[in-house]
Structures are given as C-alpha cells and as structure tokens.
C-alpha cells in the first residue's frame, strides 16, 4: 500500500525536477547588464533564412542588410551608394559593368572580401542546385537565364574577377536599372569556405560569416535575432550602435505592448485597430510614409464577364470611391491610387487613370454610361464574384466596394473570403477568379519592377492581361539605354495598361513605425529600409 501510494509522488517529483532543470537551462541571457545600450527592433514575422540566396522574406532582408553588404548599398535617405564597391563604370553600350572593390572590405573573420568571392556568389545564385528564390536579380547577366534553365554550367555566367579587387559583370542586354539590383540582399557575397564546410547549415549562428556592419550572434528563428558590431567592417567607425536585437512579433498589438513597456525602440508596424489612439498618444514617435507598394483589385480578363469587356471593367473601377476607402477604412495615411506604379520613383512620373481628374459625380455618370454600353441594366445587373484573403481590412474594403458597386451601378457582388494560399492557387489558375484582391511591391527603384509583371506570359500576371502594344513598349523600354526615351516607353506602357483597366488600383501602402524619441538618424524612405548602422542613440541631455 505504502509503495503504491508513493509512486505517483515520485513521478511527480521527477517531473518537477526535470522542469526546474530545463528552467535553469532556459534562463536566457541573464542579468549581467551590458555597458552599451542595445537597440531593440521589432521584426514582424519570422525570417526564413540568413542565406542571401535562400532568403525571400522581408524580415530576412531587414537582417541581411545589417549583417551583409552587396556591391552597392543605400544611404540613410534611400539613394544608391557604394557598398563593397568603391567605384564603378559602365561601358557606353550599357553591357559591361566594372567594379573596383574597397581594399579594406573584410569578412567578419577578418579575411578580405575579394572579386573571387563575388564570382563564387553570383554563380551560386544562378546555380539550379541552389534553388535560390531571388535569382531574378541576376537575370540580366550574360547566360544567367540559360544557367537557371539548366542549359549551361554556372561557370559560364558573365561575371569575372579581373584582378583581386576588380570585378567585371557582362549583361545579356542593357538594363538601365541594373545598379539598383546590386544593392539587393540576394547579390550579397556568401563566404565560400563556410558554404563548402557547412552546406545547408552555413547560415546558422556560429557558422555564418558575413561582410556587413554587423555579424550574427544568435538566432532563434521564431523569437529573437541578435547581431553585434562586425569589428572588421570597413566603415565600422561610423557604426554607433554596437548591438541590435530583432524581436519576432507577428502581432502588431503584441509589438505595441512591448513598445509601451519600453522593451522595443522601433516597431515594425502599428496595430490597425488602435491607429487613431496611437497617433493621439505618440504623435512624434509615429512615422508613416508612402512605400513602393500598391493594393489593387485584379480582373481575370481571360474569362467572362471580364474577357473582352473593358467597358464593364472601367465602370467598376470608376464607381469605387477610393477617397472613402483610405479615409474611412484603412485610415493610416494611405493615398488613393490612380496609377499602378506608386509615385516617388526617381525619373518616373506615373500616368493616371483616364478619369482621375473628374469629379465624383462625373465619374458616377460616366460609369453608368459604360455599364449600359456593356449591356447591363437594373433588370439585367452584372453578377460578380469578388475574392479576397481572410483579413479584417480586406473584408471591410470588399464590403465597402460591394456597396459602392451596388449603389452606383446596381451590380450584385458576391464576396468570397478565402485562405491566402487558396486565393493564390485560384488566382494563378485563372479558372474561377473574376475580381480578386492582390498587392505588389517593388524590390528595386524602377517602374519596371511593377510594369514587367503585366507583360503577357509573366508568371506574376494574375489578370491574364495580354496586350501586344503593351508588350512591345515594355520590350523597347527593356533595351533602351537612353533613360529619357526609356522613361517615355514605360510611361506609355502604363498609360495603355490603365486605359485597358486590367486592374483597379485602390491605394498605395504606407510604412508605419513607432520610433523611440531616443533614436537619431531615422529617415522615412519609399523602400522602407532602415539600416541599423545609420541609427544612433540620442545623447542624454
């Protein structure tokens, strides 16, 4: 009896001991206070990889910009500037780029960064065996497409070390925006001996060698990424903050709580539901800026009712009161969109939708005329399915649009709410979609980053838009070396796109951050990049 009774208690005791032991081992960094202040930044959701070639998420990009450095990088204001390259030249035909690397560029283990490192990295980027997500950034390089398709060996890539510090890149065709691709994280060099030694695990803390202002110290991919100053970085003297902690917090509300509790200096976002209250409470800490991203509704133009029906598409686009959407629903400083390419790109002025200058009433009148002309009436209303992925904001926008279409035109809209992956699959298949919610963001500072996805045959062309004039203009823009002429081609292409109403631009996204008053050096930019080494702590008064 005694023996059986004591048994559960001994089990209990063992469990307790195990728990206390694991508690002790998981105690975290401990109470030893660092002399230097750590910068705590919210990262949003979890980063997917710190291998620049396998990384795809925005979050990985944020960390990679701190720990690595490509040939070019950005100034605090978002302009291109030399990274590992201290000088470069482009041949007159725009095909050959020659870079001179800094003599003092170093890996985080002290070894020099050489032109050979870049050759190795570019080859790895396009090697089909790497299966890199962002290999597109190398697409303009000579033979890149053939290597990606498996038709040529990676050694055939048009990237060559001319000397230890001289790198030559040959392009397949002139690409006026090519330099901006060379600031993308996917073109950062990877440390060859590390890749060879550790394989898939080379990007883990302890293995990863990088060449940026910081180096990776610790990464718990779903919780915390810790980086510290890379003592060998060529411009380390300018790096004010010695240690940065990125906190993985996918819920903006949780992030805001931690900001208020003083546990974060910079947030990744701001909770939508309490935006007004936050603007009231922290007017000087809230940073809102327009970004290079657009929220739009696409039409599946390959199926009825939108196939060959630009009048119906135009009527639906005109009937939406975008001002109401951004003021009443999103309400975070977004601007209503009348173009597909967001404004703010250097050397590009997006044309506007043909009705952009009309008053609300004129738009309503014209929308009704077009609706009539397309063969619809109150007795024979258009019946439309509008698909969006499950999210509160998407739902509220869809409901508002449903009402606007009904009130202005008498359209009967069915709202279909789908899980994101389901919607993606449907949009790609173009079988059941009619109107669908989507978004696009630019990854380099050029209108091509947006307009190229609507070329016929582009995989990201979810509308199925195929227009010979558009394709011809885009092809001419892609090969035109003169920036002024090229700009005209691109603007004309967008004008064609907008006049065909293959999609409905709704609003341009904004970036939203809370930035502690202690932080100096923060600048709002259209790409929403904020390198930690550009920031510093305000000296106490």
């Amino acid at each position, binding site marked *: 009896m005694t023996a059986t009774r004591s048994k559960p208690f001994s089990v209990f005791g063992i469990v307790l001991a195990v728990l206390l032991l694991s508690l002790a081992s998981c105690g975290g960094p401990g109470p030893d206070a660092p002399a230097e202040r750590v910068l705590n930044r919210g990262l949003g959701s979890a980063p997917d990889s710190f*291998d620049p070639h396998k990384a795809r998420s925005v979050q990985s990009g944020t960390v990679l910009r701190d720990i690595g450095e490509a040939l070019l990088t950005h100034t605090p204001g978002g302009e291109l500037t030399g990274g590992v390259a201290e000088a470069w030249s482009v041949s007159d035909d725009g095909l050959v780029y020659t870079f001179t690397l800094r003599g003092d560029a170093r890996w985080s283990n002290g070894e020099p960064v050489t032109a050979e490192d870049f050759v190795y990295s570019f080859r790895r980027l396009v090697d089909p065996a790497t299966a890199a997500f962002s290999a597109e950034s190398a697409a303009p390089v000579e033979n890149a497409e053939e290597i990606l398709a498996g038709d040529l060996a990676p050694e055939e890539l048009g990237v060559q070390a001319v000397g230890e510090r001289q790198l030559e890149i040959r392009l397949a065709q002139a690409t006026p925006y090519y330099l901006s691709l060379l600031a993308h994280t996917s073109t950062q060099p990877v440390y060859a001996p590390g890749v060879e030694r550790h394989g898939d695990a080379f990007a883990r803390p302890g293995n990863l060698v990088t060449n940026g202002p910081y180096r990776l110290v610790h990464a718990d991919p779903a919780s915390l990424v810790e980086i510290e100053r890379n003592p060998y970085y060529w411009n380390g003297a300018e790096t004010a903050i010695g240690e940065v902690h990125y906190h993985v917090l996918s819920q903006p509300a949780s992030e805001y709580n931690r900001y208020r509790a003083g546990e974060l200096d910079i947030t990744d976002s701001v909770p939508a539901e309490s935006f007004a209250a936050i603007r009231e409470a922290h007017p000087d800490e809230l940073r809102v800026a327009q970004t290079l991203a657009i929220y739009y509704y696409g039409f599946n133009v390959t199926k009825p009712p939108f196939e060959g029906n630009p009048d119906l598409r135009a009527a639906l686009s005109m009937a939406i009161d975008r001002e109401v959407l951004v003021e009443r629903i999103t309400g975070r400083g977004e601007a209503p969109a009348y173009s597909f390419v967001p404004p703010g790109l250097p050397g590009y002025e997006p044309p506007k939708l043909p009705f952009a200058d009309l008053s609300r009433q004129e738009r309503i009148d014209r929308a009704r005329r077009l609706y009539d002309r397309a063969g619809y009436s109150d007795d024979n209303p258009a019946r439309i399915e509008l698909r969006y992925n499950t999210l509160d904001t998407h739902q509220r926008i869809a409901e508002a649009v449903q009402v606007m279409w009904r009130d202005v035109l008498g359209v009967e809209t069915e709202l279909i709410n789908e899980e994101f992956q389901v919607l993606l699959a449907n949009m790609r298949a173009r079988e059941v979609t009619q109107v669908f919610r989507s978004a696009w963001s630019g990854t380099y500072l050029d209108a091509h980053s947006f307009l190229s996805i609507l070329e016929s045959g582009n995989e990201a062309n979810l509308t199925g838009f195929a227009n010979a004039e558009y394709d011809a203009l885009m092809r001419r823009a892609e090969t035109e070396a003169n920036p002024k002429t090229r700009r005209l081609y691109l603007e004309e292409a967008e004008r064609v796109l907008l006049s065909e109403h293959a999609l409905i631009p709704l609003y341009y996204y904004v970036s939203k951050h809370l930035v502690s008053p202690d932080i100096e050096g923060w600048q709002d930019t259209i790409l929403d990049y904020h390198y930690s080494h550009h920031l510093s702590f305000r000296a106490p008064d």
Partner: protein
Amino acid sequence: MLAFTLRRLLAAIPTLFLVVLGAFLLVRAAPGGPFDEERVLPAELEANLLAAYHLDEPLPTQFLRYVGGVLTGDFGPSYGYRDYTVGQLIAQAFPLSLMIGGLAMLLALALGISAGAVAALRPNTALDRGVMALSMTGISIPVFVIAPLLVLAFGVSLDWLPVGWSGSGGISRLVLPVVALALPQVAHIARLTRAGLIEVLESDYIRTARAQGLPTSTLLLVHAARPALVPVLSYLGPAIAGILTGSVVIEQVFGIPGLGQFFVNGALNRDYTLVLGIVVFYATLIVLLNLAVDILYATLDPRIRLT
C-alpha cells in the same frame, strides 16, 4: 503490466502510420504550395525549387521518401525556416513548450485540486458557489482575452513583469504566460475534483470510515483522494498533450517560440514537412500519454485491471 505496455506500443504503430498517411494526404490536398506568394516565381526558378525539395516527384514516391526519413529519425528540411531541419525546430521548440506547459499544468493541478476540494467539503454553501462561479468564469473567458488583459495589467500599467519573451530574460518572463495558460485548466480541474470528491464522500465506505471516527484529513488524503481524482486523471492525458505541444494563442501574445506557433504558421504557409513532423510528434505524445494515464488508473483505483 509489461505485456499490456508492449501490446499497446505495438498497437500504436499502425495508428501512427495512419496518422502520417492522413496528415500527408491532407496537407497535400490543401490548395497552394510552400513557395506560393503574390510574388509568383518565374517558371524555371520554381522548377528548380520543386526539384531541390523533391516536390516534383509523384506523390506516392514523396510519401515513401518521407516515411523512410521518419523511420530513420529524419523529418526533412523545413520549407519555411530554410536554415533548419524540422527535427531541429522541434528540438528547439519542444523544451520551451514542455517547460511552460509543465509549469502551467503543475500550477493548475495545485490550484484546481485545492479549490475543488474546498468546494466539495462545503457543498452548496456560499464558499462552494463562489469557487464554482470563479471557475465557471475561468472556463468561459477564452485565453485570447485573458492573456492580453494580464499583459495590460501587469506588464504595461503596473510594469511589474516583462511583456514579451525575447529580450529581458530571466524567470520573470515565465509568470504571465504560465498563469494565462493555467487559468482555464484550474477551472476545469476544480470542477472535476469537486464532482469526483462529492460523489466519493457520499459512498458507503467513506461513511463507514467516518463512523469509525477517522479525522477528515485522513479520510480525504488516504481514502477519498485517489478514487476522486480518476476523472481528473482521464482529463489530464489529452490536456497535458495539448498544453505541452503549445498553446498557439499564448505563444502569439507573448512571442514565445514554442511548437504551437510553428504548427500554425507551418499550416498557413504550406510548410509540409514542418506540419507533418509536428503531427507525428504530437500523435506519438498522445499515444504515450494515454498509455501512461491507463497505467496510472490502475495505480489509483485497484478495481481497474489492465488487460
């Protein structure tokens, strides 16, 4: 008992196989894929990716490859956390979930059994009704309400405890998640304990023991506790498995990198291997815990025989 254990373990093998097969078919039946985003990949890039992860093979081949891997302890690479394998992610996340879930369960047991016993000893008094009303409240308020309220009160307003997991380390960061996770369990356990105890206290043998003049404490601890706790025990098996594999809500609110958020994010992002790995892990855990509960039954209640 050894024969019983062995038989149950053998019976678990087909169960686990069916779980793997079902989970495999379900995740693959879901629309979309692990590399699908609004930024659709160019065809040749996508083909390279699918080939690199063997996703271009026929489904039966992929299934056999997966099962073969699992048998050798290899759960494959994660598609969403590409620097890690699924095994490494589970190995990182489970100790955390175990610690937080285990502490929450211990807290829930201590509070729940005491509260239930107190209520059972004074049935239908104000004390009993008060305890039961409180526990009813605990059951009714969902964790996603309790957790942010605790954060607001103790983290933001009073500033006594850290709000998040990452960063300011130490034991204090455990308090809020453990309490938030324990509260609904306290309520369940209290109600089960009370019901079980009231029933046992009215039984004949207790009446006999009482008539013999045994003090209430002996009565309760020696004679009544074990049979009264059988319902609690049967609740504990699945509850422990659930709580150990992580509470998604708690992990989201506090930013804890436990198993639950890996599971949910894996499912949403079609991280097939991660979802499957956690399902296999969870299923194994449930099988083992149910077995443990059955064995404990026999220890607690001599009328139960293991056959």
